[in-house]
């Protein structure tokens, strides 16, 4: 037999790393056979619905639940007064603040949770919430974060008055949450003072919502006989939820089981713990029956975890050739009424200090102030690592402004400032060690693919005809894979992740991870990693996640951490199994381990054809014929604490044509080159990139959570909130380079968030570019037709 061909055939049959294996998840999703939280039905289950505040800021004078309780089918109405004896009327947030579970004396934002009604069915519950009578006294409302720390601002958090030591810093004002800084202020200021050229640009990264198709919800079930609480909950971090529920309820962690069933998208919206969960759990404990609570769409958009709301100023100091000498970034962060950001504990502004981007910047200073306003809490990372979208936006926008000021092409200025290939690993002046990169190659590949010079020529002609055409360019670097537990923890739990792999006697595999898939395709890709490591076909490898009773402890899936951390744990656990398998193979073949070599799916005795044991042979032997002194079985667990983050990067280019009459923008072309290191499943990567670009398009071009002066949220339905369909979505062109991560066991970096992080500033870059010849340096998102038309009008470009 042709051994090369045979080897290739065996390799292919593994469906391992690098192949576009079809998603294992799709069969059930495409057939509508997924099992989501709202599909869970339990005997005797009751339904909860929430009474919410119509006001953004008001004192609660009284709550009368009598009429609601009198409605047949209503079992309970919980208010803060009911939770107070349990000390559960407030709960700790992941950011070191506290949040009201049910409004205690005051409401701080419109739609805040005031009372939970529990009834026989959803319909009775919905009628009952209308019968709960709440008397409010309206208070002055604070909407604008720029006014939060003024003398005349109303004080929002009466519970914090006088407590000037916050979780992260001293507070300067009762509406101040924290100040956080990175870099060297004085050194940076000195460079700015002496610089040949400086630019400064204010920009608002508006408030948006991740808006997963499945809203948040849970089914809490307290079994009073065995004392066990089971909660089905659509969570991106089920193990952390278990720990928090145990801490809040006083139940031993072994008596709490959290199950994340199929999840209909998370995008950061499902990391935190929400009042609805806590109130439902209390209701189940009190009533002794399962209680289901599921948000409707308006509740989801209005109350659970928004993203962004960063008011930023980016400043660059450079020489006349555009070589950057220093970066200064100031941020005013609107966190809403409670600080319930989901960031690693020591990073109240997430990884905003990745704002030095892909560039070799000698010195920088970042200053972030977080403030309270009368808006829903949140500040999660919507399809990005912690605040990385904001960081990439501010540096990429400010780079464009610098290029414009100096009259240097925006591709050229990036070329001049990139961290060079040979500089990696490169430590940024704000403290990240970029693991690997080849930015020049990525950029040139994109410019060639789209004929960048040709596009610029075309743009000149169009401008001469009075037409509006823009070219956007972004070269981003992300930081994902949180993270090394020496710097990253959540509530004190280090941000490692885990995998447990069991090889059965017949050579099939069951593996469980501490992460949880929510569209990423873990059941497909983790199996590919194991297949390549162990030489067992991925079709015989089952992946399970999300049940805290069975899977090893992990921090969950967000911030593109599954592949960098969970994927690493999977590879390392597989390697532990392989090491044991090698010992068994040596025993079976009666040779020393040193005489063995690995080939695809088997150990072979070097130089002795035919003397070999496949992984299947070894698996069988592991259960009946192991070397003396070795315990039987073939399993391994790995808790992987990464030595560093990973730093995916990319170069994106966008071409837009703007209709001057209407302000409508046509995304003519979008070219996205991503480098996520080793590619596990190219088809899934393409899908991830298409999804991320589409969500990026949504954010840049339409999504927004507009509040009026009274704190009313004006757009909380899908009529107003922009969720693009296939009709609106542009055509995406994708490309890649491969620069493996040197510290990751298989060199993979994570990919799902790059397209979101990278595309958003690309759209803005293109929109501004369409007006750049008219001295426009920046336009705030969303770039919807109405706002663009106003820009056109302000520039006097309308025909009449």
């Amino acid at each position, binding site marked *: 037999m042709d051994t090369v061909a045979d080897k290739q055939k065996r390799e292919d049959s593994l469906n391992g790393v690098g192949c576009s294996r079809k998603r294992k998840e799709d069969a059930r999703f495409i057939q509508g056979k997924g099992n989501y939280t709202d599909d869970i039905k339990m005997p005797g289950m009751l339904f909860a619905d929430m009474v919410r505040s119509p006001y953004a800021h008001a004192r609660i004078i009284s709550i009368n639940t009598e009429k609601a309780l009198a409605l047949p089918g209503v079992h309970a109405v919980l208010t803060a007064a009911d939770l107070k004896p349990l000390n559960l009327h407030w709960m700790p947030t992941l950011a070191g603040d506290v949040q009201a579970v049910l409004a205690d004396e005051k409401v701080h934002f419109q739609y805040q949770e005031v009372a939970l009604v529990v009834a026989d069915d959803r319909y009775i519950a919905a009628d009952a919430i209308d019968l709960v009578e709440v008397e409010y006294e309206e208070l002055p409302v604070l909407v604008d974060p720029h006014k939060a720390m003024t003398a005349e601002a109303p004080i929002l958090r009466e519970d914090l008055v006088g407590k000037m030591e916050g979780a992260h810093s001293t507070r300067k004002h009762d509406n101040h949450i924290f100040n956080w800084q990175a870099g060297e202020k004085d050194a940076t200021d000195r460079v700015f003072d002496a610089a040949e050229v400086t630019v400064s640009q204010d920009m608002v990264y508006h408030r948006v919502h991740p808006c997963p198709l499945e809203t948040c919800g849970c089914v809490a079930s307290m079994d009073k006989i065995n004392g066990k609480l089971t909660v089905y909950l659509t969570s991106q971090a089920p193990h952390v939820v278990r720990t928090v529920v145990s801490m809040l309820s006083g139940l031993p962690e072994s008596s709490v089981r959290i199950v994340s069933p199929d999840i209909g998208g998370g995008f950061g919206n499902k990391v935190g713990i929400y009042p609805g969960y806590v109130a439902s759990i209390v209701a189940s404990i009190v009533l002794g029956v399962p209680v289901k609570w599921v948000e409707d769409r308006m509740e989801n958009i209005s109350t659970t975890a928004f993203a962004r709301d960063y008011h930023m100023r980016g400043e660059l100091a450079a020489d006349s050739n555009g070589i950057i000498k220093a970066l200064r970034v100031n941020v005013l962060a609107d966190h809403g009424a409670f600080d319930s950001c989901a960031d690693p504990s020591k990073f109240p502004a997430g990884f905003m200090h990745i704002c030095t981007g892909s560039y070799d910047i000698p010195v920088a200073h970042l200053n972030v102030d977080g403030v309270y306003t009368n808006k829903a809490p949140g500040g999660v990372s919507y399809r990005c690592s912690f605040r990385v979208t904001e960081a990439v936006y501010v540096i990429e926008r400010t780079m464009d402004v610098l290029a414009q000021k100096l009259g240097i092409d925006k591709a050229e200025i990036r070329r001049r400032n990139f961290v060079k290939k040979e500089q990696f690993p490169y430590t940024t002046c704000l403290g990240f060690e970029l693991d690997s990169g080849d930015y020049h190659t990525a950029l040139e590949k994109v410019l060639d693919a789209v004929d960048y010079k040709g596009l610029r020529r075309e743009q000149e002609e169009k401008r001469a005809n009075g037409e509006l055409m823009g070219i956007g360019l972004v070269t981003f670097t992300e930081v994902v894979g949180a993270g090394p537990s020496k710097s990253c923890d959540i509530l004190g739990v280090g941000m490692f992740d885990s995998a447990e792999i069991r090889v059965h006697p017949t050579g099939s595999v069951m593996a469980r991870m501490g992460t949880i898939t929510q569209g990423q395709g873990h059941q497909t890709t983790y199996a590919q990693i194991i297949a390549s490591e162990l030489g067992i076909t991925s079709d015989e490898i089952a992946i399970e996640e999300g049940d805290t009773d069975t899977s090893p402890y992990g921090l969950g899936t967000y911030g593109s951490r599954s592949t960098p951390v969970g994927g690493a744990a999977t590879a390392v656990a597989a390697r532990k199994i392989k090491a044991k398998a090698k010992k068994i193979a040596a025993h079976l073949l009666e040779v020393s381990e040193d005489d063995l070599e690995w080939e695809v799916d088997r150990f072979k005795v070097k130089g002795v054809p035919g003397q070999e044991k496949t992984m299947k042979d070894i698996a069988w032997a592991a259960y009946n014929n192991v070397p003396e002194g070795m315990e039987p079985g073939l399993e391994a667990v790995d808790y992987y604490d990464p030595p560093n983050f990973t730093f995916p990067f990319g170069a994106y280019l966008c071409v837009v044509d703007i209709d001057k009459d*209407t302000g409508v923008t046509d995304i003519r072309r979008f070219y996205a080159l991503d480098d996520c290191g080793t590619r596990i499943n190219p088809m899934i990567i393409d899908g991830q990139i298409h999804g991320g670009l589409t969500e990026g398009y949504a954010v840049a071009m339409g999504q927004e959570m507009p509040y009026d002066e009274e704190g009313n949220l004006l757009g909380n339905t899908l009529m107003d909130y922009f969720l693009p369909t296939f009709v609106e979505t542009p055509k995406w062109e994708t490309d890649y380079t491969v620069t493996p991560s040197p510290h990751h066991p298989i060199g993979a970096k994570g990919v799902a968030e790059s397209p979101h992080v990278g595309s958003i500033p690309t759209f803005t870059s293109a929109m501004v570019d369409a007006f750049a010849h008219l001295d426009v340096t920046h336009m705030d998102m969303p770039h919807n037709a109405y706002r663009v038309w106003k820009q056109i009008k302000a520039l006097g470009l309308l025909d009449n």
Partner: protein
Amino acid sequence: MIPSCFEYHKATSIADAIAKLQDNEDAKLLAGGHSLLPMMKLRFSEAPYLVDINGIEGLKGISIDGDTITIGAMTTESELIRSDILQQYCPLLVEAAKLVADPQVRNKGTIGGDVAHGDPGNDHPAVMLALDAQLVIHGPDGERMIPANGFFLGTYWTALEEYEILVAIKVPALTSGTGHGYHKLKRKTGDYAVAGSAVVVEMNGDVVRDIRIGLTNVAPMAIRAEAAEDLIRGKRVDDVLLKAVEKAIVAACDPAVDLRGDEEYKSHMAAIMARRSIIQAIENAKE
């Protein structure tokens, strides 16, 4: 997103439906349900009694008799789009229906519901004005027919009297020298118009013999841009005239401010949509 309790009655005939409207206070007709049900789910509208007219025979279908096309009020948007008669003799309705909401809504939503609801954001009212449609109405006192022009009185307010039901719509078949256009600016699929405009022109060579311009969602109800029509009637259309027409349309608009835009933007967009529809209509008339 759960409505309050309501009673439901499936009407067996128009007379039955009218009787139920008379017998039950605040009863509402249920056609396609795609305007009414969301309002009930949001509890913006309390309808204690719904009279479902989906099962009534004879309220559906499209026929042509001489120069007149008759469309049953319960004909769905999807049925309008697929109709051979409309594609040949009234393509304006087909084009407008294609821009209504999304496929799911178009499969359930009806032309009669769209017209009778009185929502200025609905697409068909402006189309009815441009087509000079006649509306066939049944009530306790029998049948009457009234022109669409004058039917739309305000937001959720039409010339329908108490207990009356819109049963059919009559529109003229396209004749030689007639052209039409519909343009709608919307933020995304499924949205109401920022502004829309339906135009029908009758040409005499290069000269516009007659024109009707209907406007969507730029006033409390669908309106005719009569001042603009007067500018065009009897003229050859050129850029200078179109500029004047745009100004007249902006002046005719009185839109509500919402996230789609302020008064100025919406009024200007109505003018742009009208201009595009006029140009399209004149082009169509040549074919």
